[in-house]
């Protein structure tokens, strides 16, 4: 009987009190949890939304949201568990006291279950409320970033609620199990003591330091020397893994090895300025190295995520222009030449109907050839044996002069060459056994763009004297007349909507022409890019937020536990004969150092990673490395300021704890 009243009234009360009394640690935990719930819920709501199916170009976003949800799961679950273990460690004394006062293990289990239930309910309901309140705003932000038509109808699907409730329910349940297991494994006396355990000396410091240096150095070398090829993403991930491991080892062991070597230098160590600082740093690093690693990694991830997504978003216009120097391209199958009157008729009619002005219309034919580069010579391409595939587009001098408005001349054995990437750079070229003198390396063609940073590009436009030379070359490479293409390209002027409608109608007519082959246009491409890169930026922003929240939370808990320890040290140092001011300045200096090492290392990591990031960006058609650099600078600056602010805010928790008792 008594037991039931205990169960129904006392234990829940103790649970509520447990959370309230530990408000300074639980409130940030609940807040971070709520933010995580909110972001998860928003991602889920967007991907589940029926509206997304009806919007044009929105399929990328749905996919991206699913990816986002998945990544969020992968990142959040271990993070929330580690925070949970920090919390339970701090609560052990209190739980030990309960059991000394006569509560049985099962009672403590009930208390913990109720507590978990309360924290779960608070964070889930608060998170979902935030999410629902802001969902419309967030949705508008997404539509805005992705350039989709602005829609105010946005409803939340019930499935999102269920998924969110289940996912965070599983995390809470898992944490509860861990806590129950921990408490059931220890007896009250141990529970009582466990928050005061001393630090053990880490083992194999020298070995771990060496491993750390090798990992970090290897990661850096790989990142700096990465060649742009199909494996670059794998290489990048490998480098990231190495750097994470290296950072971990160097923070946990390297720093200790360094400080120990400082201590070995007696002249340096036994000086007033260094003595307390070095020993204090050593102690702090032993205790908090793993949190520092986490802060550093989360910081780096936030910075790099933002750099990538922001530069993609800003660079998308350039990327579209690089892909399509002219607004529309139409390709025809033609043996030799093609009569353009039918197409031109449609063009004229439809442009007039839609009040779109067609400008800069050009047409030319070209022959596309695949070749295998054998040292300096280009040979016939064979699918089975060839390794270095190059593509040539052969154009007659007449077409060149006409489209480019030039009056150049060529002899039979002379060509002009244009590379879409780095310059060809030689005086002659051997095409399937015939040598041609390169009269000029062109730097500009109005229908294709040149990207010197595009390391992948192995495509040349070659201008030859006439179609006879071209067909001779074509035959030498083993191609027939069907490799000849005919293309019409033009720019448009008019309103966005008119242009879209015009292109849509023109495409219908175009594909009714028997010789039609393919059409591309910049408008559709831009919209595709806009929706994809906007979606990425959206994800980037939210992941940036999540990473930053994780980071700030770790920082906050670090401050609290440091504060509690330093409070004791403050007293002792004063009793031994340091003045209040001396104590404060030395300790606060250490605390600051501890907190600014991770951001400094994060910035270093980012700086090293910039090169490989810039080359990966070229795969996404962002060739402007200055843009990436500027974005990096801006992101680091903003992030640094934010880091500083969160340091100041969390440091207040530290000061609050230490200042009270520091006066004797």
């Amino acid at each position, binding site marked *: 009987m008594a037991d039931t009243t205990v169960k129904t009234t006392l234990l829940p009360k103790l649970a509520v009190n447990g959370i309230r009394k530990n408000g300074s640690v639980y409130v940030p935990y609940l807040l971070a949890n709520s933010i995580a719930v909110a972001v998860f819920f928003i991602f889920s709501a967007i991907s589940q939304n029926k509206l997304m199916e009806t919007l044009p170009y929105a399929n990328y976003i749905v996919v991206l949201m699913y990816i986002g949800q998945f990544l969020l799961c992968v990142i959040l679950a271990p993070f929330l568990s580690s925070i949970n273990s920090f919390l339970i460690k701090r609560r052990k004394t209190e739980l030990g006291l309960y059991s000394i006062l006569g509560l049985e293990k099962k009672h403590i289990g009930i208390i913990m279950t109720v507590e978990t239930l309360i924290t779960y309910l608070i964070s889930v309901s608060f998170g979902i409320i935030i999410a629902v309140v802001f969902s419309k705003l967030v949705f508008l932000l997404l539509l805005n970033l992705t350039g989709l038509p602005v829609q105010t109808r946005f409803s939340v699907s019930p499935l999102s609620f269920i998924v969110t409730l289940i996912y965070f329910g599983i995390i809470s349940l898992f944490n509860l199990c861990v806590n129950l297991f921990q408490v059931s494994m220890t007896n009250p006396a141990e529970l009582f003591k466990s928050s005061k355990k001393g630090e053990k000396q880490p083992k194999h410091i020298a070995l771990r330091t060496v491993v750390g240096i090798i990992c970090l150095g290897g990661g850096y070398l790989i990142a700096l020397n990465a060649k742009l090829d199909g494996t670059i993403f794998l290489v990048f991930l490998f480098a990231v893994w190495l750097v994470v491991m290296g950072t971990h080892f160097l923070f946990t062991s390297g720093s200790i090895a360094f400080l120990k070597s400082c201590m070995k230098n007696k002249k340096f160590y036994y000086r*007033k300025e260094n003595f307390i600082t070095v020993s204090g740093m050593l102690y702090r690093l032993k205790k908090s190295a793993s949190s520092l690693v986490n802060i550093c990694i989360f910081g780096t991830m936030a910075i790099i995520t933002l750099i990538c997504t922001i530069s993609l978003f800003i660079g998308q216009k350039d990327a579209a222009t690089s892909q399509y120097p002219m607004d529309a391209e139409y390709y025809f199958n033609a043996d030799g030449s093609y009569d353009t009157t039918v197409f031109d008729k449609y063009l004229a009619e439809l442009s007039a109907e839609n009040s779109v002005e067609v400008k800069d219309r050009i047409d030319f034919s070209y022959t596309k050839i695949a070749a295998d580069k054998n040292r300096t010579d280009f040979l016939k391409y064979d699918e089975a044996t060839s390794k270095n595939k190059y593509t040539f587009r052969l154009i007659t001098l007449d077409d060149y002069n006409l489209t480019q408005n030039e009056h150049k001349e060529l002899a039979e054995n002379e060509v002009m060459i244009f590379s879409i990437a780095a310059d060809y750079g030689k005086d002659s070229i051997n095409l399937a056994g015939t040598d041609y003198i390169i009269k000029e390396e062109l730097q500009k063609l109005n229908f294709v763009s040149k990207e010197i940073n595009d390391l992948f590009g192995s495509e040349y436009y070659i201008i030859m004297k006439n179609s006879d030379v071209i067909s001779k070359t074509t035959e030498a490479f083993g191609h027939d007349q069907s490799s000849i293409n005919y293309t019409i390209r033009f720019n448009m002027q008019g309103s966005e909507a008119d242009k879209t409608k015009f292109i849509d109608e023109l495409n219908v007519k175009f594909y009714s022409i028997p010789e039609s082959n393919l059409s591309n246009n910049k408008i559709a491409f831009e919209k595709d890019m806009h929706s994809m890169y906007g979606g990425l930026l959206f994800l980037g922003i939210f992941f940036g937020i999540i990473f930053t929240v994780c980071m700030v939370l770790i920082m906050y808990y670090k401050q609290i536990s440091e504060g509690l320890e330093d409070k004791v040290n403050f007293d002792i140092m004063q009793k031994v*004969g340091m003045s209040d001011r001396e104590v404060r300045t030395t300790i606060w200096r250490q605390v600051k150092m501890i907190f600014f090492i991770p951001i400094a290392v994060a910035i270093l990591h980012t700086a090293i990673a910039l090169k490989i990031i810039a080359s990966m960006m070229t795969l996404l058609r962002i060739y402007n490395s200055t843009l990436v650099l500027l974005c990096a600078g801006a992101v680091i600056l903003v992030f640094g300021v934010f880091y500083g602010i969160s340091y100041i805010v969390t440091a207040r928790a530290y000061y609050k704890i230490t200042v009270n008792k520091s006066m004797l």
Partner: protein
Amino acid sequence: MALLEVQNLKKIYSTRFGGNKVQALEDISFSVENGEYVAIMGESGSGKTTLLNLLASLDKPTSGDILLDGMSFSKIKHKDLCAFRRDKLGFVFQDFNLLDTLTLKDNIFLPLVLQGKSYKEMEKRLEPIAKRLAISELLNKYPYEVSGGQKQRTAAARALITMPKILLADEPTGALDSKAAAHLMKIFGEISADGQTILMVTHSIQAASCANRILFIKDGRLFNQIYRGDANNEEMFKRISDSLTVLQTGVKENG
């Protein structure tokens, strides 16, 4: 002239808004000669700790003065107080007050480092002290790796290494088991025999019976004092417990 002179010391604690006033010390005067080993005894709340805090210059008396080597505490400027405490006084506390961040050796060196002594000098001073306190083997360990008695001996070494005018000990055996306490008291006796002046506040009759003179404090006043004379520790033990009986029955009568 006496090494330490305490003149009409008075200390009143008042709550922040001047409401309740607590008279911790009424009027205490005594002096300690160079090389003396003095124990101060009294019940909880009798003002022992207040007295020690005043002697340690950690707190200021309401009235009265303390002179060490003829120098008045009240004349020392606040900013010099730290250095004064560090250079002239040595402390041993009940709860050791060792820094977990430092090895035992570095804990002992701490005041010397603050004084700016060279490493050579520190080593030279450490050796005999560590030997005397039987901690030579433990110097490279951290405080959380050694026992209470070892910690307290380390704290004593830290107090002694500056060669203080006077060693102040606040319940040094309070957190120790009887064996460790006896060991520490034996060491205190030896240090005292070497000429170190010691002033120790204690509850323990066992600890106090090692001293040359015992001051009894009651309700913020000096109640009684016993000199050792030729008596051995057992006799001292008996005399102290007799005095304490008188002290405590006196409380009853007053009550």
